[in-house]
């Protein structure tokens, strides 16, 4: 029991590292906020872009989103931080983590918004279009309210 307490409940060691853990927590919070904002914004943008149904663009979007959703985020983070410098692209730890996680969230949120766009019955688009709402007005207003994120 003494060794257990020494290893896991060592108050002296905890006190020594507590400030650094708090520092780390703060980094995590800031990073999470930055990732959420960038990831969701880019995902919404991509889903609306996809709604225009330009074939060449959509092939690219679907491919990129599928790859980003399939790869483990850790692999992307490591690739950005350790592999990209070999290609001459250097990022700080913070930026590479933010970029990698934002891209992953972008991919997932794009799919969520896209599901929202598909979920709106065709007749509603037509009603909106026939009252003079523009393409963007019809595509941007509804998906956000109807997708699982917006609700």
């Amino acid at each position, binding site marked *: 029991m003494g060794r257990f307490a020494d290893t896991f409940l060592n108050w002296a060691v905890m006190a020594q590292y507590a400030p650094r853990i708090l520092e780390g927590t703060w980094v995590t919070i800031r990073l999470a906020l930055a990732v959420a904002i960038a990831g969701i914004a880019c995902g919404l943008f991509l889903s609306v872009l996809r709604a225009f149904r330009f074939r060449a663009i959509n092939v690219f979007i679907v491919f990129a989103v599928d790859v980003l959703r399939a790869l483990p985020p850790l692999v992307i983070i490591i690739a950005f931080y350790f592999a990209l410098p070999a290609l001459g692209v250097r990022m700080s730890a913070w930026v590479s983590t933010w970029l990698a996680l934002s891209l992953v969230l972008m991919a997932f949120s794009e799919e969520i918004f896209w599901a929202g766009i598909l979920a709106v*019955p065709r*007749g*509603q688009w*037509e*009603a*909106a*279009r*026939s*009252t*003079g*709402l*523009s393409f963007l*007005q019809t595509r941007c*207003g*509804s998906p956000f*309210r*109807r997708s699982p994120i917006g609700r």
Partner: protein
Amino acid sequence: MILDVAALHKAFGRLEVLKGIDLRVKPGELVFVIGPSGAGKSTLLRCCNRLEEPTSGSIKVEGVDILTPGVDINAIRRRIGMVFQSFNLYPHLDALGNVTLALQRVLKKSRSEAKDIGAAALQRVGLGEKEKAYPNELSGGQQQRVAIARALALEPAILMFDEPTSALDPELVGSVLNVMRELRESGMTMVVVSHEMRFARSAADRVLFMDQGRILEEGAPQKIFNSPEHQRVREFLVSIER
């Protein structure tokens, strides 16, 4: 002419749905379009505000050719009110919200101004006290009248009805037809695709019979219903009288 359609063709792939339609609608006129299903009636209406892209031909609304490249189709669309068979209300907005959405977003009216116009439009279709009701709280007839109010609020030059009563229970049809009759009396120009023959007899200025993408016969309701020239029209009328 409010609406001037000439030599309109529409094909979906190899299927020709409209094979040269000519239709001119004068201000204040109520044109009734009948015909068997698959005749192209809905497609004709939907081409008139480019929900479907016509393959060839010309469509002029208030003298403006809506098929010219670069034409502001959104500006033209709000001059053409559209009422659908399935109402197509926005389920997340209440009745007033459905009516005022385009007023605020398209015509850029202030919230209070849009509210006044929207309330007046709902009043006009007899739903003044249903402003706060959501579509799923309204009967089919009431939903369709909200849809009519939504179109009316934009002060369109012409209203198009695509089988407005086909999705309604029989006892609710009357309320919608009454609104349409009142609109006609107030001088609204309308094109109506419908199977409500009794309404056509009493309210229409002109009846078109469409079959297989063409207008087979047209004329005053008395003529079409009582002494049609074509055997095809007679058969159709008999088949729907039951």
